[in-house]
């Protein structure tokens, strides 16, 4: 992010802030803002830091106050116990399968539809696009009962398919990718057409690579949404061997009641780990993607 003061203004600004009081005012204002920003970022990080350090404490002492912010016991056995208490690998695997399948499905269906809506001319385009956009306003909670009945009708309840199939396409994905397709100059398409490429080749060989950053954004947002999902798994999955991570963690907490929290927190940390790793590598795409999607929209 660029600073707001561009080089051009600096001389003027300096000239104006020449007097002592004004410099002091600026300095004071800056420090106040800085302290507030620091306080908020502490509030944002503290719960996660606390969860990590408490997950490494001896279970018996996990509720002892004052809290220790730095891990001192390094009880990594807590992490082993997560796997013996509940089928944690199973939860992990189920979450992974659902997220991966949904990402794959959405990248395919949304990019195709987005390309058609952005670059091709066909009758009914405007109406169909607004129909799909209006689906953005429909919360899954409002349609969950009929969707559940459909899933039951196809005998897919208590199967990961119940989570995957309804997620195979998304209005948001179509909308986001369309914004990117719109920005590509049409010369590239024309050149490919003159070279004899058919519609599918133009899409897959020419256009798709050009929107790769947008595909990355969609993949990351989708991963985040489905990895963390709790509502639909709670309704569709009934046997613990089908549980996804968030469901499994609440199950793990249930086993301990108000007792030891260190092991529960070890599970929480394990479930956060993939998302945190993804965030470290993909932060740029994620943040710019969200910003771009909203500003262009």
């Amino acid at each position, binding site marked *: 992010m660029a600073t*707001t003061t561009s080089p051009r203004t600096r001389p003027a600004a300096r000239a104006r802030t020449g007097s002592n009081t004004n410099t002091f005012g600026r300095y004071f204002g800056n420090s106040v803002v800085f302290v507030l920003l620091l306080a908020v*970022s502490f509030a944002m990080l503290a719960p*996660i830091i606390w969860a990590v350090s408490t997950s490494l404490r001896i279970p018996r002492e996990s509720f002892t106050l004052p809290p220790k912010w730095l891990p001192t016991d390094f009880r990594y056995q807590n992490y082993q116990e997560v796997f013996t208490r509940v089928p944690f690998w199973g939860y992990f695997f189920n979450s992974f399968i659902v997220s991966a399948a949904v990402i794959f499905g959405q990248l395919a269906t949304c990019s195709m539809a987005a390309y058609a809506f952005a670059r091709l001319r066909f009758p009914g385009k405007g109406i169909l696009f607004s129909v799909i956009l209006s689906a953005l306003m429909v*919360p899954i*909670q409002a349609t969950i009962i009929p969707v559940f009945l459909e899933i*039951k009708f196809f005998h897919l309840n208590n199967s990961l398919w119940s989570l995957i199939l309804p997620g195979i396409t998304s209005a948001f994905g179509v909308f986001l990718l369309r914004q990117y397709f719109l920005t590509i100059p049409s010369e590239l398409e024309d050149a490919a057409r003159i070279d004899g490429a058919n519609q599918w080749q133009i899409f897959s060989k020419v256009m798709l690579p050009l929107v790769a950053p947008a595909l990355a954004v969609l993949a990351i947002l989708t991963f985040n949404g489905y990895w963390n999902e*709790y509502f639909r798994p709670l309704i569709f999955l009934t046997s613990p061997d089908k549980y996804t991570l968030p469901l499994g963690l609440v199950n793990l907490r249930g086993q301990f009641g108000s007792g030891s*929290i260190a092991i529960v927190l070890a599970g929480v940390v394990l479930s956060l780990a993939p998302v945190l790793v993804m965030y470290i590598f993909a*932060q740029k795409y994620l943040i710019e993607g969200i910003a771009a999607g909203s500003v262009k929209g």
Partner: protein
Amino acid sequence: MSTQAQRLTPTATAPTERRNKTIQVQRRREIRAAYLFILPTLLGFGIFVAIPILGAIGLAFTKYDVINAPHYIGAQNFQEAFGDARVVASLRNTLVFVVVANALQIVLALALAVGIQRKMPAWVRYFFRTSFFLPFITSAASISIVFGYLFNKEFGVINYYLAKIGIDAVPWLVSTKWSLYSIALTYVWQHVGFTFILFSAGIQNINKELYEAADIDGVNSWSRLIRITLPLLSPTILFTTVIGVISSLQIFDQPTVMTNGGPGDSSRTVVMIIYDVAFRNLRFGYGAAIAVLLFIMILIITGIQFLLSKKLVFYK
């Protein structure tokens, strides 16, 4: 074929008829390709959005318990809903939650987005941005487990530090007065970073010359905020309010994991009632009626926001 024809046209004696035909063929191919491209998405929407919406509206007028076939009972479900104390309480809770969470989130995100524009080293700005946004990527269910412990009245970390500065233990999750607000705090903690990112992007898009002109005129920071930043950011503020309100109306994970709607029904939300009624009591018709009410609520609130925006939002 078609490309050959195109290549030949400049030299050949302009067979316009043939050329028109090629264009027609191309057009037809484009249309066919377009429909094939949108087909999977349309199928997905048909099966998992359009039919379920119609289905929910239809079911709302029936009595259905999965075992016996649904039968039509008119508007009885809606009448029951308006007289059902739990439903009314959940509507009230949800609205209070939506207002509190969004107001807090927007003010805080705005302050952070404006604050981060100050002069500071790039890595400091990067650190702030990273930490503000980090909670957004965590799972609401897992983080609610963490906040459930932090908010514990006797052993919670938050009350421990409050006691240090002389504040009595707050019954965050065990009092009917506090539970909803504690959940709102958890929600804001998780979502403020998203709003912050949108606001920062919006501020970056404001023409820098306006600020330069203000600098030259010696305008103070407060006036810059009120006269330049806020008016020019108003479309972004509207956009984030709309998506913020829609998503917070659907609140479910946090209250389910943190309080399970309690104590009493003090933190039970509309979606929790839908879940209870439909999937625990197997009253699918009644559940669908409440779901339709939630959907109507979303439409009305979104409509009001857009009407207000015509008066309040400044478009270039």
